[in-house]
Every structure is written in C-alpha cells, then in structure tokens.
C-alpha cells in the first residue's frame, strides 16, 4: 500500500491538512471583513457626519469666502448646480459619440484591424489617469482661450469629463449589442429591413437596458471626478445667472470638497462634509439604479 494516510474516515482536526484548510478559510473570511470595512466606515461617516450639516441653507446658499464663522459659512447650492451642468455637458458629448462608436464596433466592424485598434484604443483611453484629461483640456482649451476667449470654464470642465465617460460608453454599447442574438438580425434582414432600420428598431432597443446601465455608471463616475476639473472649471462661489456663465469658472461638489477640506476653518470643513453627503447619496443611488436596471433586463430575457 503506497498511501499512508488511508486509515480512518473520521474527521481528524489535528491533521495538518485540516488545520491548514481551516486556517485558510478563517484568513479568507478575515480578508473579506477587512475589504468590506472601509465601505462601511466611509459611508457611515459621510452619512452621519455629512448628514448632520445638511439643512435648507446649506443646500441653497452660495458659499461665503473662507473664514472661521460657523454661522455665516453659506452653502453648497452653486456647486450642486455646477456638478449637474458639467455632467449634462459631458453626457451630451459622450453619449452620442460613445453609443455611435459602440454601434460601429458591434454592428459594422466584424473583426477588422481598424475595429481591433479602436477597441484597444478605448481600453487605453479608459486607463489614462483622469488628471491627464484635465491637463489635455487645459492645454487645448483653457490656455489657448479658444472658446470665445474664455479660460477656465464650465464647458471646459464638461468636455474633460466627457473624455472619461467615452471609453466606458463605447465598451458597454459594444458588449451589449454583441449579446443581442444574431437571429434577431437575420429576422430583420429577412423581412427586407435596411441596416439602419435593423439597428435602430431591433438591436438598439434589445440592448437598451444594458447600454443604459453602462451610461449610468459612466455618469456616476464623471459626477464624482475632481482631478479633471481642478484646473479646467476651477471653482466659483456664485450661481450661474445666464447661459453665458458656462463660459466662466464654475463650482462643483467635488472641487468644493477638495478646496474646503484643506481650509483650516471648521466652517468650510463642515461644508465639505455636507457636499460629500450629497455626492455619495446621488452616486450610490445611480449605482443601485443601474444594478436594478440590469437585473430587470435579465428577468425580462428569461
């Protein structure tokens, strides 16, 4: 008999194999707890600490210049509007371009060299640090004053956010369309539909929920980005009052958090926590919403 360990079927806890197995299981459980801990800590601090500074004034007032006056620090109203405006600008640019690019990859390209290159390129673009997008927009828009002579502006901020959204949207559109069964395409062609009709009436609607999941996730990421805005949109303490104001400095929640967290005054720090509360609640809701959409999509396909 060449196998020495074949004796009893009884579980022997002192066997080195069993000790090793149990300790590894405990270690992996411990790692899982450590991994979840930061989320719980960050969320609870932001919700409790940030939530405690939320009131109507905080939500609508303009922030006052930094100073240690807790009673008249103002609020984060313009930053909420600014984040919203710049995210909308970014979406207006990146959603059509991203979905269009995804349609090209999934419906037209097959697996040609150009498509391979575009897929590779969007992976590379996705991996480029977000601050580089800011540097790039600073160089081509801010420092050149190419947009009607304006330098730091909401529109420059929105454009730099769109660079970050683009690869995510292309990728999810491409993958969502590839999951649409080819039978549907054959069926559409079979009744004489043109390719344009087939895409707009059959495959895009079929992939709609997966695409919107990806768009929502890209949107959530862009809304929380700071690095590309720090020297493109800069910051402003004032509400915008006319359309022209998007060509001037614009405040955002994320840059407000960055600026005010580093102020030595308690009053500004409190506003930073309040802004974090709003940002985290909105972003987590977007994430949960996108998850919910994708589960709905799975169920409706069954």
């Amino acid at each position, binding site marked *: 008999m*060449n196998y020495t360990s074949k004796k009893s*079927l*009884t579980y022997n806890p002192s066997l080195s194999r069993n000790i090793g197995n149990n300790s590894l299981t405990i270690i992996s459980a411990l790692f899982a707890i450590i991994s979840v801990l930061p989320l719980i800590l960050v969320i609870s601090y932001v919700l409790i600490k940030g939530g405690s500074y939320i009131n109507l004034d905080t939500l609508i007032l303009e922030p006052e210049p930094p100073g240690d006056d807790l009673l008249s620090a103002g609020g984060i109203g313009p930053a909420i509007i600014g984040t919203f405006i710049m995210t909308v600008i970014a979406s207006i640019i990146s959603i059509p371009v991203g979905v269009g690019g995804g349609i090209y990859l999934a419906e037209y390209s097959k697996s040609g060299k150009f498509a391979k290159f575009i897929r590779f390129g969007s992976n590379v673009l996705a991996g480029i640090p977000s601050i580089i997008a800011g540097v790039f927009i600073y160089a081509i828009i801010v420092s050149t004053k190419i947009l009607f002579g304006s330098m730091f502006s909401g529109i420059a901020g929105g454009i730099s956010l769109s660079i970050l959204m683009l690869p995510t949207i292309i990728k999810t559109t491409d993958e969502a369309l590839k999951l649409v069964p080819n039978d549907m395409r054959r069926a559409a062609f079979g009744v004489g539909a043109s390719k344009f009709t087939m895409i707009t009436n059959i495959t895009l609607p079929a992939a709609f929920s997966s695409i919107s999941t990806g768009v929502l996730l890209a949107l959530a990421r862009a809304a929380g980005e700071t690095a590309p805005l720090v020297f493109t949109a800069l910051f402003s303490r004032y509400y915008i009052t006319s359309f022209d104001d998007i060509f001037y400095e614009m405040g955002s929640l994320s840059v407000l958090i960055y600026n005010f967290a580093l102020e030595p005054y308690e009053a500004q720090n409190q506003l930073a926590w309040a802004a974090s509360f709003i940002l985290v609640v909105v972003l987590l809701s977007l994430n949960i919403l996108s998850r919910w959409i994708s589960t709905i999509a799975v169920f409706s396909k069954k």
Partner: protein
Amino acid sequence: MNKKNIESTPSVSLDNVSITYGNSVAVKNVFCDIEKNQVTSFIGPSGCGKSTVIRAINRMNDLIEGCKLSGSVIFEGIDIYAEDIDPVEVRRRIGMVFQQPNPFPKSIYENIAFGARVNGYKGNMDQLVEESLTKAAVWDECKDKLNESGYSLSGGQQQRLCIARTIAIEPDVILMDEPCSALDPLSTLKIEETIHELKKNFTIIIVTHNMQQANRVSDYTAFFNTEKKDKDLGGKIGFLVEFDKTKNMFNSPKQKSTQDYISGKFG
C-alpha cells in the same frame, strides 16, 4: 461467481436515503446493498435521481448549495454522513469519474501525479503513471506525449485518462456517472473493456442510460423510476423500483415498470 454470499458485508449500502434540493425532493427511500468487487449499474429514465444517488456516495453533493440527505450511506460499516466524518477522506476512498471528461489543464503525467500527490503517494511516480494509464487502457496512446496537455487527447482518451487518474489514488470504490454519454461507440467499447478489467481490484458503480451497456458490464442492476410528486407542482420524485442481479433483472424482472423500461416502452 455471481452466487450471492450471505456472509460477505456489502461495500456500500444505502439505507433509506432521500435527497432534497432546497424544498424539492429529488429521490426518496432508497435501500440498496452494493457488493464488493462487483459492477453495479444504476439505470432509469432521466430525472429518476440515479446521478443524484451516485454523487451522494462520495459526498460530491456537498458542492451543491441546498442539497440535503436523510437516511444513511454506509461505507465499510461507517455512516459517511455522520457528524465526525471528513468528506475529503471519503472521496479518497471512493473515487469518481464524471459524465464529461474533465482532465486538469495540466500535462497528462501531471493529471495522474496531482491526485497521487494530494493523497500522499510515497512510491515511484513514473511507475504509478504508467501502471494507471495501462490499467485504464490508454497507455499506448499516451506514452509518447506524457508532457502534453490532457486536452490534446480525444474525448474517449480524455475519459480514460480520468479513469486512470482515479485508479492512481487506489480507491476502494469507483463511481462512474454516465462515463460514456459524451463518447463515440468505439471509445465506449474500450471503456467497457476497462471496466471489466478494473472489477478485479475495485468495486464499481456506474450510472448509465444505456440498457445494453448495463447488461454488458454489470453484475447487479438497480432500476430507478419517477413518480409525479404532486399534480399541481408537476415535479418528479425518483425512487428505486427494483434491485437484483443483472441476469435476473433482464430475463425475469419482477416489476411491471422494469419490464416496460427494459423492453423500451418508455425512458
């Protein structure tokens, strides 16, 4: 040879075994004694629980979430579902060959050596690899490419490699869950020959949906059937209809449904 020896203890006996997945009963009240060094086959229509039962014999069902067993599975006098049993030890004594050939993504040599090492093999590894592959009747095809991936073999050869891998750990019992269902007739024939050879050293339990195969390879046959669980639910519960020597089973079955199944009226 086939004369039943009353004194001999069975290798594995199922004592009132019922298995459930979550809330649905898959198979219920199975009693069955499996003799040492004999081939026992489980036959029956699909959904009758024959695969579920064979997987219960070496606790592979532990891998399936929500799978529960009541009753007891006795292996050499020990209830392998008792609290203090180590399922890993059980699987070292009761090896298994699966429906789909599943070699590891390693070389042919490593496929055999991995299991042996896991089981604490002390002897000459080269010799073990050659012996096991020879016993599984696949040595000639493999001997010149032991360092190539297990996936470089054909389906039938892969399955015999998996049998060799199981033989190498020297279990007492080998379970085979429809080992030929993914194979062509020629490979099937080779595996059946292998089973004949293996009977000398191992107790073999084989699940098959092929009655001719059961007739050709096995000494004992267990016929499982299904019954409607509930008119509303529409689910099926498997149960053991008849268990006897294969010879008797195919020549003079005691139950009407066995007769019907064997003569091809359903299934």
